């Protein structure tokens, strides 16, 4: 845990009232930045991570020693060009990469919060990250960008701060978490809580680890990030280092072995309680309901230019749900573009090397920046 203590953090001194009613202050937000903030401070981009992401989208994550989660999209000369833009990436509150979360120490007990951590929402995450902008003295960002849960944060950010971003790119997301997605998250949570080692959330103070439950949660979730066609093409019925079925419950099939591996590496980098809290935040996300059933009202008065992106094979946050956002924006005459990218890689497409997607983001960002900030000649 020492390594996590050494990560770059901003301590928010202000008070933040959470949706659950509790108030927090003096809490850390772990963050990283990439590129340079220009003199006019108009090239800032805040990117929001997905459920299991962190503040390390680019380069090598110092905790996991693995490549950043958005290495395809972000970096010098990439879609989000760090030669041009100043990118801020923060770990959400509720997370486990240094930001205020269930594994943080509760000063009143000197033990990790565990299940005593307050239930947080997407709204709380966004409000917390907004403090970072004060820290960098950025009055208006050029862009807010994120996929999946990151996309939900983009929508909430523009709704909360209507004129704090020139452009917004919500990717593969929804304005209202569906019953299917709540069900899938509940499956993961039940797997964690069914593990005896979870210990009612007190595993950290009691030296335990619900790694089996967390691994199952990850395995189930991982399937939802892929597509049937993608799985079939990559694995089919191929066997794992054997010539014939073994008539047992070992990993006979490559797909089984792959999922077990995904589960096992996940538990090394992720906190089970964070998984519970963050999935809960996603389930509670319903921007339409926040505005009494009219999603358009969430964006009324915003001059932000939207670019919404979905993927053909994403069944977790399908095109239809992304299109709802487009429809709500069109209803109020907002500036909105939309494209559905063809890809067999499922929901995970936004994290992968999908050239049509990466080119769209790059062209949209570069053209928009040129039109908004460089056109005054």
């Amino acid at each position: 845990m020492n390594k996590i203590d050494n990560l770059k953090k901003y301590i928010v001194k202000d008070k933040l009232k959470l949706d659950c009613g509790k108030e927090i202050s003096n809490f850390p937000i772990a963050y990283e930045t990439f590129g340079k903030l220009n003199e006019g401070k108009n090239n800032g981009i805040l990117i929001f991570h997905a459920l299991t992401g962190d503040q390390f989208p680019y380069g090598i994550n110092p905790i996991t020693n693995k490549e950043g989660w958005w290495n395809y999209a972000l970096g010098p000369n990439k879609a989000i060009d760090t030669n041009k833009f100043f990118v801020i990436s923060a770990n959400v509150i509720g997370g486990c990469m240094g930001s205020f979360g269930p594994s943080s120490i509760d000063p009143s007990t000197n033990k990790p919060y565990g299940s005593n951590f307050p239930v947080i929402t997407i709204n709380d995450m966004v409000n917390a990250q907004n403090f970072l902008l004060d820290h960098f003295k950025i009055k208006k960002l050029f862009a807010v960008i994120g996929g999946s849960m990151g996309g939900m944060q983009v929508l909430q950010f523009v709704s909360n701060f209507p004129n704090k971003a020139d452009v917004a790119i919500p990717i593969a997301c929804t304005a209202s978490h569906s019953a299917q997605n709540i069900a899938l998250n509940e499956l993961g949570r039940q797997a964690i809580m069914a593990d005896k080692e979870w210990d009612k959330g007190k595993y950290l103070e009691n030296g335990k680890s619900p790694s089996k439950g967390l691994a199952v949660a990850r395995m189930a979730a991982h399937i939802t990030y892929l597509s049937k066609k993608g799985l079939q093409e990559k694995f089919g019925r191929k066997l794992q280092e054997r010539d014939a079925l073994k008539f047992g419950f070992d990993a006979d099939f490559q797909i089984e072995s792959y999922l077990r591996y995904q589960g096992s590496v996940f538990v090394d980098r992720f906190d089970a309680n964070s998984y519970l809290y963050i999935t809960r935040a996603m389930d509670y996300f319903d921007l339409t309901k926040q505005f009494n059933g009219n999603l358009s009202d969430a964006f009324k008065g915003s001059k932000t230019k939207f670019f919404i992106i979905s993927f053909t094979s994403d069944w977790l946050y399908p095109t239809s749900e992304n299109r709802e956002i487009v429809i709500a924006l069109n209803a109020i005459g907002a500036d909105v573009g939309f494209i559905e990218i063809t890809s067999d890689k499922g929901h995970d497409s936004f994290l992968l090397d999908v050239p049509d997607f990466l080119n769209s983001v790059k062209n949209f960002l570069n053209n928009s920046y040129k039109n908004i900030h460089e056109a005054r000649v």
Partner: protein
Amino acid sequence: MKQEFKIISSLINENSKILDVGCGNGELMKYILENISKNIRGLEISKKNVQECIEKGLTVIEGNAELDLGQFPDKSFNYVILSQTLQAFLNPEKVLYELLRVGKKAIVTIPNFGHWKVRVDLLFKGTMPVTENLPNEWYNTPNLHMCTIKDFVTFCNQRDLKLTKSISLSGKKVSYIKKSNLNYKNLTSELGIFEIEK
């Protein structure tokens, strides 16, 4: 720059709010954006074309005009443009009414099936016409509902849709279509360009 696009652009007031339905690769939108109004967006069904529009820095929504115009509020645009696409819809009448609901004015252009070259092809060759404006063969044409300029004018008149401007384009030659010259223009025009109000 196509002559057709120049004429369409000349019909539009500066700084109006415009929707280009079936905007293709965005050539017309780009011209309008740079010369007439920044407040323009497109609706386009082809993913490849949407990509090209984004490359040009245009605001485009991927979608199908027959299904997706419903999301725009009444009279939310000053002009809705439909360039040489009406004949390709399953239900052109419904689309035209949608254009006139969403836009205060619609600018619609149609390839004229009454042009003499088309008539000659059918009359003497006995084959489905293939011309510069109608380059496809009968088996691969996207055009489901071809019509002549006269058909279109009659269609609008029967429904009390006001044709506030009717322009004929033949090669580079631009002229007005009037009641008195309708039969002649129906023979000589390659393209009809109409500004319509409800």
